[in-house]
């Protein structure tokens, strides 16, 4: 539990004159679920994309399991053991579910039948078993999300970065997704999750960090963090009334 899997130091990103992420530092332990929250435009996704290799940081560093991954390309980040999902799921539409999953497997192994067996296993694990021969474009929105998660798992990650897992999901789907994420963590995968839906973050995360205007403004246990004045201010503005306060 105490081993560090991700360390982010002084991470910054400028888009022209705008600084989207300002000198952010945090770290994650192995096996942890860390929630990253903040209002719209807080720089959550920018930070997320820098860790995943999709954006080059303007300054700062990202270390994964002791290895410097700063500014590495997405495919190198993937091979180092960091997988990601996208906010809008991006299935390979004209490929079947099983073929989608096998792409993930090929990141580590070239043996086709091995990848197929493993993809079938992951599909069963996440409840995609009956759908393996379906073309991804014919899946429901929620099954696409499931596929996205399964595909990421097929790359055998140690750290999984998840962007908005329940956006647009019904309450019961959201509940199921929470269960799936827990199942994934129980396999020993550490998870960094960016999420808007407070209920999900509160029930999933071991710890949360809060972004506002590109800065990290709070860090700690979910229940404790969301009652802090600076967090409430970021979400609700200066003159808010806390019900029951």
């Amino acid at each position, binding site marked *: 539990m105490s081993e560090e899997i991700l360390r982010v130091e002084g991470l910054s990103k400028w888009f022209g004159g705008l600084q989207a992420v300002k000198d952010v530092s945090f770290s994650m332990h192995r096996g942890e679920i860390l929630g990253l929250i903040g209002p719209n435009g807080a720089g959550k996704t920018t930070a997320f994309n820098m860790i*995943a290799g*999709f954006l080059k940081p303007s300054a700062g560093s990202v270390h994964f399991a002791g290895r410097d991954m700063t500014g590495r390309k997405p*495919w190198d980040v993937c*091979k180092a053991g960091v997988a990601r999902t996208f906010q809008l799921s991006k299935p*390979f539409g004209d*490929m079947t579910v099983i073929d989608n999953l096998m*792409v*993930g497997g*090929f990141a580590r192994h070239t043996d*086709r039948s091995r990848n197929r067996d493993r993809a079938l296993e992951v599909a069963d694990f996440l409840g995609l078993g009956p759908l393996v021969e379906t073309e991804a474009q014919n899946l429901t929105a929620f099954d696409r999300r499931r596929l996205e998660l399964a595909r990421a798992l097929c790359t055998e990650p140690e750290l999984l970065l998840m962007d908005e897992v329940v956006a647009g999901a019904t309450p019961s789907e959201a509940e199921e997704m929470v269960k799936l994420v827990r199942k994934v963590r129980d396999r020993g995968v550490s998870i960094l999750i960016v999420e808007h839906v407070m209920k999900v973050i509160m029930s999933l995360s071991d710890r949360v960090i809060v972004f506002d205007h590109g800065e990290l403004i709070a860090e700690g246990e979910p229940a404790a963090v969301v009652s802090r004045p600076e967090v409430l201010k970021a979400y609700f503005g200066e003159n808010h009334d806390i019900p029951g306060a």
Partner: protein
Amino acid sequence: MNRFAALDKTPQARGLRLTQTHVLLVIVAGLAFVPLVVTDSFTLHSIIMILFFAYMATSWNLVCGYVGQLSLGHAMFNGVGGYVSVLMFTQLGLSPWLGMLFGGLLAMVLAVLIGLPTFRLKGPYFTLTMIAFAEIVRIWVENTNDFAGIPLKGAEGLIVPNRGDDFWAFQFSGKVPYYYIILTFLALALAATAWMERSKLGFCLKAIRGDRDAAEALGVNPTRYTSIAFALSAFMTAIGGSFYAQFFRYINPERSMGLELSIDMAVMAIIGGQGTVLGPLLGAAILTPIAELARGAFGGGLLGLHLVVYGFALMACVLYFPKGAIDPLRKIFRKIAGGGAK
């Protein structure tokens, strides 16, 4: 009924997995007997042209069909193959069998050099860039009589000196040897495509076609895998160019690296079914005879009429079989294969 359904499952699944390989073997084996039946020289010539275009469309499909990038510059690799093997034969006396390997290698190098800066381009931008590169090469050859001591002979073209019936000179008096050579090339190209489709390379290419960002997140370096496939495709296309040169014993820039050839390759693969193993073969089998008949029927009177035919075929295809003419055949075949398992 249920009992039977349960029993059917395994053989059916196994049958489907072998289907493609079986169809491939049957087609190639069937084609091997054609010269025994067809003795008329003109008909055999026409069938050789069908196989040649099937081979070229298959080579084009190897990268463009699977990555979904429309290259209309592949004729450039055909030209490189033809010119290198012919020049090595006339200048150095090297057998075209070896010369075509050098042509293939040069085409590979050219493909990677062009590919590295252009693969980032998407859709029409990539297509236009490829046309531009191919046209630059064509125009350069057309206007260059002599390059560093190599007699390119410009628009006049190159003639392969006649050596009679000589295997090492890749020259035969009859059509039958050419037939078996191009059939072998085609069989190898189809086998390479079938192998690639199931390999890591094939999965990576299809992933890039599906969604580039998602592919990258799953460990696929798009530039690397597209370059590998593009180089393979260029190599195969160049080998086809050498065959073309030896078969006609004459090449010129217009015929062997013109835009028309690029369009032929692309349209045949698209109409037949790009991104499938047998689609390009089917496309060539449909379109080459139509083009030949149009040329034959109207003679020199209506030049380019076959292009109009292509246009209509393409429109019909996009409207009715967007996945290519292979798609309905596949469905029928699946039904037969499913019924056969019972």
